[in-house]
């Protein structure tokens, strides 16, 4: 029972973690970033490369990966996404072209093979069952990131400017802030968080050019079923789908875990087309 609980919690945390960057970019900017999986993949490659070149694993994971992928986000936003604001379908298509491009580039550079990173931290025992301590790190990182984003958006001046820009860019411009910079920064933060997520999960999954595809299905479902509220919606959706996925995996078999997730999402969207956020009060984050 304890072990099942930990597994469920771990799946939920993983789902919330891979969805956070996507949720911020979509929720704030209405851009459906189809290159999200590739940002996660670049995060994983950053930590693998930095660590195998002798850098400390934690610095590679928490500093190098988000910084590098954040930079990639800035380049993406400046070169492509910024020309397409307001045209949701075109941003989706263009980012998806970028996703193919990045996959191709990494395949050409590093080859189509899996590289591994050994899982840091050991394992410890609860009630006679050994669990990898790394699983708790993932849960901890996820909770910390959600708390930090909530705090920044709600309580700081930067967060206020970001929210105001998304609400009314011309008003913000009249008050002396360049909305273009705010968009770039928001996109970069979303990208950096995706990079961090990819890096944190890399020791568990291995590193592969096409690994993004394994993540994006789950991340997209979580974000669209989450709806308007970036943090609360994503967290609730992650909780719901993580539980569905893990319970099906334990009860039936792993093949049906993701199928159950898709069926769950379809049923849920049929009942709540606006996503789980429609259960919360408006203006929730």
């Amino acid at each position, binding site marked *: 029972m304890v072990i099942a609980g930990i597994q469920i919690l771990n799946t939920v945390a993983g789902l919330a973690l891979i969805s956070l960057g996507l949720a911020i970019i979509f929720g704030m900017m209405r851009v*459906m970033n189809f290159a999200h999986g590739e940002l996660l993949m670049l995060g994983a490659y950053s930590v693998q490369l930095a660590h195998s070149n002798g850098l400390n694993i934690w610095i590679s994971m928490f500093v190098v990966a988000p910084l590098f992928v954040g930079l990639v986000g800035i380049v993406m936003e400046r070169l*492509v996404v910024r*020309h*397409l604001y307001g*045209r*949701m*379908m*075109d941003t*989706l*298509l*263009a980012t*998806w*072209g*970028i*996703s*193919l*491009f*990045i*996959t*191709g*580039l990494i*395949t*050409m550079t590093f080859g189509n093979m899996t590289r591994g990173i050994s899982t840091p931290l050991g394992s410890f025992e609860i009630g006679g069952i050994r669990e990898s301590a790394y699983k708790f790190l993932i849960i901890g990182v996820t909770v910390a990131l959600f708390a930090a984003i909530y705090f920044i958006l709600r309580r700081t001046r930067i967060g206020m400017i970001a929210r105001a820009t998304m609400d009314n860019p011309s008003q913000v411009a009249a008050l002396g802030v360049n909305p273009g910079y705010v968009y770039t920064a928001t996109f970069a933060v979303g990208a950096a968080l995706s990079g961090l997520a990819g890096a944190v999960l890399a020791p568990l999954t291995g590193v592969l050019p*096409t690994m993004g*595809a*394994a993540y*994006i*299905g789950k991340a*997209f*479902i979580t974000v*669209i079923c989450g709806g308007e509220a970036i943090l609360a919606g994503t967290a609730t959706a992650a909780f719901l789908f993580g539980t569905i996925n893990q319970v099906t995996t334990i009860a039936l078999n*792993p*093949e*049906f875990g*993701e*199928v159950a*997730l*898709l069926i769950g*999402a*379809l*049923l849920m*969207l*049929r009942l709540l*087309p606006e996503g789980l956020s429609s259960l919360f009060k408006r203006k929730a984050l």
Partner: protein
Amino acid sequence: MSRSLSFPGQMLALVAVSTVLLLALPLVLEIDRILQLTLVFAFSILALSLAFVWGYAGIFSFGQAAFFGIGGYAYAATAINLGDSTPAIVAGVLVPTLFAALFGYFVFYARLSKIFVAVITLVMTLILYKFMGQTAKPDYMIGNARLGGYNGIPAVPPINVPGQPHLFAGPDEMFYIAGFSLLAVYLLLRWSLRTRFGKILVGMRENEKRMELLGFDTRLYKLLAFVVAAAVAGFGGVVFTNWNAFIDPHVFQLAFSAQPIIWVMIGGLGTLAGPILGTFILSTLSLELGVQKALDINLLLGAIFTFFVLLVPQGIIPTIRNYLEGRRTAGGDSSEGATGARG
């Protein structure tokens, strides 16, 4: 000039020219080119299904390759079990149709926005890939056909003369079947777009709210368009499985699902000829590049695709047509814009 011909006249001319071409090509081309063209025909049917649902009904579906694959799997399983291809072809069209009807009901009756439809059809494809890949255990059987996980279903019987499994199609016959199938699908879609149904779809693409206020149930029409496109894609999958004598989960893979979107986008959204042209150009390019290893195909396709979205969003055929019409009428704008399709 074909412009002066009436619609039936144009179609007759097209049928005449294509028939002559299709009959003559196997006489002049090498066998490897014939096989390659057969594959391109199967892919073109897939592209037409997306051209219809995206370019005319305004529904961006990531799932066309999935219906293509489901059609292929349904054909393979039925043909192996019954030993005759005729019911298998029916199954190859019917199974994706029913699947799309069920899936589409949830999606369109929930009135999901365009972007959510795109995402959820993508997710469907990804999950099918993962699920079909995990069916390697022997308990995943459809009658006598083992699904075989990532190895797929080998040795699928080819199309045969109805009721006579020993009279089956060889490469040349398969070329004719694929070629005339493509022609038939093209004519069928062209015709359907001229009917009331087709006009409702285009109206819905241009202004969904207005169509709804005029009393059309847009949920139903979207679902119908989605189902028709799934049937077409499934049929393409049947032709593809015949070409390959084999079907495996790679048709559900992200890189494969990507292809029809690129073909349609580059050939020209809101046309049927454009996507076929796009398929010919790009799938030939992919096949040629697949042989050499210097340049990764995804890198190139991604770059071309992003370039088109940013700079030539209409695609090749509409751009050329606008250019020609612009020259003729000296600045007069074309009434048949395709840009509204993506919304």
